[in-house]
């Protein structure tokens, strides 16, 4: 049954506590929104299969606690992740300001060289917005990451966030292809895109 799986990808969700990381994960994996989502302790994960361009990939998505105290613990789980989703809450400017710290954390602890990063601006369903779309996009451009606005509550952008991230990873075989006989997967007969090593473009969702 695992025959048709192209590869298994490890994806991280990081960001300040309360920005909606666990809610985004729940929305993506179970298409559900639980206002009674408990505060994550340490790390947790969920899995999901995703079909991208005729290939099925298995995703192991690691959800992390955002508190300072857990920060010393969670980076150990950054190991070997191919993608990272950095979440901020559009209604809380300080969660956006903290992204810089999260990016450098990622830089320090990720073991893959060109880990793909996606910035998700969550809770766009709320009215008391503090971070504009332009500001978010500008930040993403500056750091050469993907960018999308989303709401775990209304479903907006959630599926696309994960799909675009995975697509980008797949286009960067360096990240996920195993090295050695028998494990060299290629995507059908398609050539890998030439710019596969460049992880930086800004997707304006």
């Amino acid at each position, binding site marked *: 049954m695992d025959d048709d799986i192209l590869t298994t990808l490890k994806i991280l969700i990081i960001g300040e506590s*309360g920005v909606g990381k666990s809610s985004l994960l729940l929305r993506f994996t179970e298409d559900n929104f639980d206002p009674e989502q408990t505060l994550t302790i340490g790390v947790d994960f969920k899995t999901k299969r995703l079909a991208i361009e005729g290939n099925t990939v298995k995703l192991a998505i690691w959800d992390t606690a955002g508190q300072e105290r857990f920060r010393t613990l969670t980076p*150990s789980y950054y*190991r070997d992740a191919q993608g990272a989703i950095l979440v901020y809450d559009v209604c809380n400017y300080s969660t956006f300001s903290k992204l810089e710290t999260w990016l450098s954390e990622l830089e320090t602890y990720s073991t893959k060289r060109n880990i793909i990063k996606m910035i998700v601006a969550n809770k766009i369903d709320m009215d008391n917005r503090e971070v504009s779309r332009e500001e978010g996009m500008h930040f993403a451009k500056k750091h050469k990451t993907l960018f999308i606005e989303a709401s775990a509550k209304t479903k907006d952008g959630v599926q696309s966030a994960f799909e675009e991230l995975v697509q980008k990873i797949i286009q960067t075989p360096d990240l996920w292809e195993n090295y050695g006989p028998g494990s060299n997967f290629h995507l059908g007969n398609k050539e890998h895109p030439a710019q596969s090593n460049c992880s930086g473009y800004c997707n304006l969702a």
Partner: protein
Amino acid sequence: MNEEIDESDFYHQDFTTASEWEVFIARLEEIVHQWKVDDLKEEDATNLIIKQGLWNIKQEKLQFVDVEFTLFYYKNTSVQHKSVEDDDDTKKCKHPLENLHDFVMYSESHNNLECPLAEWYGLNEFITLNFSSPNGIHVESQIKLLLSSTQLAINNTNCTIPIFVQIRDKWQNCYLGVYEDEQIRTNFEMIHLRKGPQHCQYLTGLVDLFKTKIMSPVSLPPITVSVQLTFHLIEFGISTWKQDLHDIDRENFDLESICALPFGVTHDPVTNLILKTTWSHLPDHLIVDSENYSDFDPMQAPKWSCYVVMTDQSLCLLSESLSDVLNTVNNNSSVYDILGDFVSSADHNLDNPLDLLTEPKLPTFSTVLKRAARNSLPKSSKGVAPLSEEVLVPILYFLFPDADDENAFPYSSNKEKDNGDNMSSSHTPSMMETECKGFKTCKENSLPWRIAIMFVQTLGMLGGPKAAAHLWFEFVQEMRFRWEKSIPIPGLPSGYPDPRTCLLNQKLQMLNCCIERKRARESRETSTPNVENQTVDPNSSTDDEEFYDCSPDKPDEEDKKRARHSLWNQPVGRLGKFENLKLIKTGDPLYIPITQDCVPKTEDQLEEDTDVLLQLGSDAQGSELRAKMMSASLLSDMESFKAANPGSILEDFIRWYSPRDWIEESELDEWGQKKGYLSSRMLISDNAWIQMWESAKPVPANRQKRLFDDTREAEKVLHFLDSRTLSQISDMLFSIGSHAAICRLYEECEQVSSVLPTAFKSLQRIIKYVEKISRNGKICDRIGGNLIQQIAALELCISQAHSLLYKLNPSRGCEQNIDPFVEKLMNGDEIEIEGTSKSYIGGRLITMFSEAQKLANMIMTEHGGLVDHHPTGNITFPHPHQREFVMRVSAVRPATYSIKSPQFLRTILSKNEFRLVGAFSEDVVFF
């Protein structure tokens, strides 16, 4: 032209009785015709075209009776060919010999046609008929038959291309050929002998021969002569390139000679330098070249050119030493298997003469005394240890320079290193650092790095697997000793195991973490006697007895005075006040507790942890279990918090721990701080946080169960190191060794980059490869072998460049035209030396040739032989390896009223060969 068929005695009308000979001609015609058709189609429809440099070659097999032949068609693609229409219009096509082609510049990369006819005659298009049998064709009648039938076929197909038939033995490269157009027929003839007749040894005699052969009925115009003398330089004397190789010798062992990986080749990769001196198009009556006198003094030649022959057979030391490691990956014996009787695993940790090495406080006096006992291997009846003390001790001092007061090879301290990183230090090129950033290895020149280098050296030069096993054994002994004596391990980045480094580096960092905590514990035990802590046996493995040790809280004077808390409820384990927050219930300052440090883990442990978490499944139940597993540190923090803040409630804890779950209001409470409430998710009844808070007891961190058991972790690391097989050790060290090899290559590339501009490109490719290998876990023969091949190729190129630069520019002065010259030589091409003997390069060649000549003369006179006498009296150059003369003239043949036609003779004279390559034309219309 078809009428010519009638001339043949063999012509028959009846094709059913066609003789073998006719079948042969028909087959030839068929092939040539097919080729012509293909040619007209312009595109090369047939895949049968073989490319050789600039040449296209077609071939077909055919038989004459039972002898097999191959017909080849050669065409130089770089020359624009006259099309068929042109042929009709102009009527007169150019004779293939009407070119002034004399000598081809040698090129390794292109132009190299196996068949020498093109080079000899300067042809751009021709056909050859080669026999397949090994016996060759010697009988004159056979030769004639073949030539005439081939000619017939060519004529029938209206093909004006020279055609050749190979004769005699294959190795002789002898051909007869013919070319014919409307006006002129040219016969190509060849003579090949081991030694030519005496009168044909010099140009003067050869010109006479040429004239005789032409037998022109009228007097000849001057013959145009071109000359090329070729000199070989094989003995380079003091210009021989030698890598600075240290003789590794156990008696006078010099550590410096092995602390960098070896590099380069064992023999000079340049085996032969060939100088060609050329004179072009001289009239024969103005020059003399005879036994007693020659006008051809190489020093005066108007053109000099040279190329070099390089060997790729040299042993490349760097790649070779890596391949030693790769080979050892297949050696599954344990260190103890290999060392056998020298050591038994039972008693190896009983005595530890390495004490000496690691206790720098010992007076030097006893150092000397104890020296003899340094080797950890028992000196019993069991023979000599694989690594002698003279070798082992310096190596151990190299690995552990802190053991020596006068350490010659200190590790750069972490501080220095950090500074260096920021300011792009001068000793490590920053370009390399960024290129190698993705390596999962270790810091340059750190302890694992040095072990890897020593491992490579012991494997390659100091005794092979046995010596390498001995090295590892001593290393592990030292690690154990350091742990037992609580001495920090030098040469490692401080802090927790870094997941971006290799496993060995992480393991050693882990051991250092353990040693650090042990030291902290011990220093507390000795300085402030503490009843509780004294009962802790550091070697005990019973978890229950162990307490985490953080600095004991210094009794806060202020608190002491307060009698607000009952004895059992005294605040303990406070780190400091948290901003100005007050406990909600009591109004006491909110204190940040001293907490347990988090647990260091190496990547293999993390992987185990991750596997456990993964096995719990991704459903809600799994999540809950995971939360329980992850909550040990949360519980520990809650307990510390309660201990430091008697009377605190969950809200107080959350305000410190997860401030985003505390929503403040503007209203102030009785203590003057903002009121607030927990976030909705914290209020969910009976959630994990509430449950845990309720179960947490006020226990300060130093009395809690240790989250990290340094004793157990240290033992795990030591066991890991101790139980490695040679295969596993090589596997761990291969990436580091490759990293070190790349740094070595980089240094060398820098030195030769001016003549080897592609070096950095190749290096970058190798870097990419090593990056993959370093991240991929186990190395396999195929991938490792591939890497080693790439390294060897670059290593050889660099050595070639070194060698050429050393020969042509020994002072490395800034002679600007040398670098491009060497660069071209590196490509294997023949290059003209501008300024000939007067140029700098010319001067270098003269020096090298005359040195070799002096040496040769010395040997000659010693052996009583005669000094080689050269007609020019030149002592700089040896007798030419080869002399080549090309003579051309247009002659009126065979009758006085015939038109002029090209006559040609090339002679190639060398020690073992005498070859005349001639072409003589005559008018076939007016004769």
